[in-house]
C-alpha cells in the first residue's frame, strides 16, 4: 500500500500538488484533538492513545510513531542538563542580552519539530486526508489533527475513504 501511495504521489502530482490543493479538493469533516499527558509532571508530553476517529484513516503504528517522536523532541527541548545550565548561566551573566543574538535551545528544537511535522504531513498524513497542526499554534495544549473528506465524493460525511484515490487499500 505504501508503494502505491508513493506511486500516486510521484506519477500523479496533480492529486496533491501541494497541501493547499488538499484544502481545495477536500472539505474539513472533523478535528481530533490529542490532549496533553501530565502523568510525568508539567513537561510537554502528548497522550499516545489512538483516537477512534482515526481508526479507519491511519495505521496505529504510524500515528504512535509520530506522537512518540514529538514527545521525544519536546523532552529534548526541556531537558535540564549541562547545556541548558550553561546557556542559563551565560544568559544571566550577560543580563539576558545574549538572547538578542542567540536562539534558545527550545526555539531550535521547535524549528526541528515544525520541519518534522511538515514532513509527516507531506509523506504520511496528507495522502490519507489528514493534517497535523503544530501544537505550538494551539498553545501546546493539543495536537490537532484535521480530517478531510473529499468534496468530489458523494458528499456523505461518514468516513468514506475516497480521498482522491490516494489511499489505496
Amino acid at each position, binding site marked *: 500500500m505504501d508503494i502505491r501511495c508513493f506511486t500516486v504521489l510521484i506519477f500523479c502530482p496533480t492529486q496533491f500538488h501541494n497541501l493547499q490543493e488538499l484544502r481545495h479538493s477536500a472539505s474539513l469533516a472533523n478535528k481530533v*484533538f490529542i490532549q496533553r499527558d501530565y502523568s510525568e509532571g508539567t513537561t510537554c508530553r502528548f497522550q499516545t492513545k489512538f483516537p477512534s476517529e482515526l481508526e479507519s484513516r491511519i495505521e496505529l503504528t504510524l500515528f504512535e510513531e509520530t506522537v512518540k517522536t514529538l514527545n521525544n523532541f519536546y523532552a529534548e527541548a526541556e531537558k*535540564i542538563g549541562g547545556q541548558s545550565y550553561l*546557556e*542559563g548561566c551565560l544568559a544571566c551573566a550577560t543580563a539576558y542580552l545574549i538572547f538578542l543574538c542567540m536562539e534558545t535551545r527550545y526555539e531550535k528544537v521547535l524549528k526541528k519539530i515544525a520541519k518534522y511535522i511538515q514532513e509527516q504531513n507531506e509523506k504520511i498524513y496528507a495522502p490519507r486526508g489528514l493534517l497535523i497542526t503544530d501544537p505550538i499554534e494551539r498553545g501546546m495544549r493539543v495536537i490537532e489533527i484535521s480530517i478531510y473528506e473529499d468534496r468530489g465524493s458523494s458528499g456523505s460525511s461518514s468516513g468514506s475513504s475516497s480521498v482522491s484515490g490516494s489511499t489505496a487499500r
Partner: protein
Amino acid sequence: MHLGESMRECEYSQISTRSSTPMETPYKKRTPKRKKWEAFPGRNKFYCDGRIMMAKQTGVFYLTLVLILVTCGLFFTFDCPFLAQELTPIIPVLGGALFLFVLGTLLRTSFSDPGVLPRATPDEAADLERQIDVANGTTGYRPPPRTKEVVINGQTVKLKYCFTCKIFRPPRASHCSLCDNCVERFDHHCPWVGNCVGRRNYRFFYMFILSLSFLTIFIFAFVITHIILSSYRKGFLTALKESPASVLEVVVCFFSVWSIVGLSGFHTYLISSNQTTNEDIKGSWSSKRGKDNYNPYSSGNIFTNCCMALCGPLPPSLIDRRGFIEADAPQMAPPTNGITMYGATHSQQSHMCDQDQCIQSTKFVLQAAATPLLQQQSSEPVIITSSPENGTSLPARASLTLGGPCTSLPLGQPTPPTSTPSLSCHEAADMLPIHGHTLNHTHPLQEQAALHHYLTPEEVPSPPGMLHCGSPLGHSHTVQASFYNPASQDSLHEDSVRGLVKLSSV
C-alpha cells in the same frame, strides 16, 4: 522531487487549515491585517507593536521605577564623588553595574509574557464539551464534571476547568483574574512590576529582587559610610546639611530593605523547594494536609531545584503577539445532536453583528430560565450579576431570578449562545453549567456572579500574592471573596428590564 519542492515552497503557516483564495474570503482583502495582540482577549496592555506586554494597572510599576531611578540617581550624584575620592572608585562602578542589572531584570520581568496560555479555539472547546458530556452521560440533569484528576509522580493532582479560557488548566497553572489569563506555573500577580509572575519570567523576577536587595543594602551601607566619614571632619549636623540627599536615600533604603530582603529570602525558600507562591499560600504540598502529601515537582535536592528554576530552558511565548490574524478557518459542520454547548453556532459568528449575538445570548438565557436547571439547588432566588460597564451588550447579561417558579418544564436542550470573544456574551453561556462546581464556594451561581466583578473562590488565593510583594513574611492576605455587591442590584434590575424590552422588539 518536484512534489517535495513545491511543498517546501509553502510556508508552514499555509499548511494550516486556512484558506486564502480570493473567492472564498472576499472581504479579507478589504480589511487591513491586524496583529494578534490587537485582538488579545486578556486584560493586558501592549506596546511597541506587541513586543512589550504588561498588566492593565501599571501605576505601581512606574512608582517602582521612579523610586529606583531617583534613589540611585541621588546616590551617584551626591555620594559617589565623595566615596570615590575617599575610599575607592570601584564603589561607583560596582554600584553602576548593580543598578543596570536591577533595571534590566525589572524591565525584563515587566515586559515579557509570563507564560500566558492562549484560550481554546472554538473547535477545541466544543470537543472538550463533547468529551465531558460523553463521560457524564447526556441526560443533562447532572452537572458536567469540571475537574480532571491526574497522578503525577505518585501524587494525585486535580486539574480544574477554566470557564474563561475553556481549557483544563495544566498542573500549576492558574487564572489571574487581574489580567484575565491563565498563566503557566503561576506564582503571583505583582503590581510592583506591573505583570504576572509565571513560568517565563519567574527567574527574572527572582534576579530582580535579589539584585535589588544587594543594591539597597549597598546604597544603605555606603550612604551611612559617607555620612559617618563626613561627620568625622565636619560634625554630624553639618554633614547632614551638606548632603540632604543622603538622608532621603537612607530613609528609602531603610524601609525597602526589610520588605525586599524578606521577599528575596521567601522566594529563595520557594525556589529551593520548587513551589510557587500560589501553592505555598494554599498549602498544597504541606504535610499538614496529609501524611502522604508531598510536592511531586520537587526533585528532592535543593541545588537541583534551584538550577531547574533559574537555569532551566526558557520556553517561548505561546501567544503569538506579533503574528497576523488569519481569516476564520473553515469550521466543522456543527453536530446535529444539539448537545454541544459552545461550538455549535460558531460558524454563524463571523456573520453576526455584536448586537445580534447579544440578543441570541439573552434569548438563550431566558430560555434557560424556563428550564429547571437549578431545580435541585434553587431554594433561594439567585441573581446573576452583570457588569454594568458594557453599555451596548447589556441585554446579553440581563440579570434573572431563577428559582422555584421556573421548575415546571423539563430540561430541553436550549440553543446555546455563540461563543464570542467579547466577555459579555460568553459569560452568559458560562452561567449555566456550573452548579456541579462545588469545590469551595457556598453557592454555585455565586461563582459565576463573582466572575464578573470579583475574584472567584478558586482564583482568590492566587492574586493575594500581590500583597505578598510588599509583605512577604506576614502572609497577610485579605482573602475575601465578596460575591454580591448589593449596590449594583438596582442597576441590574434596570438592565434586565432593558434587556427584556429589547427582546420583545426582536
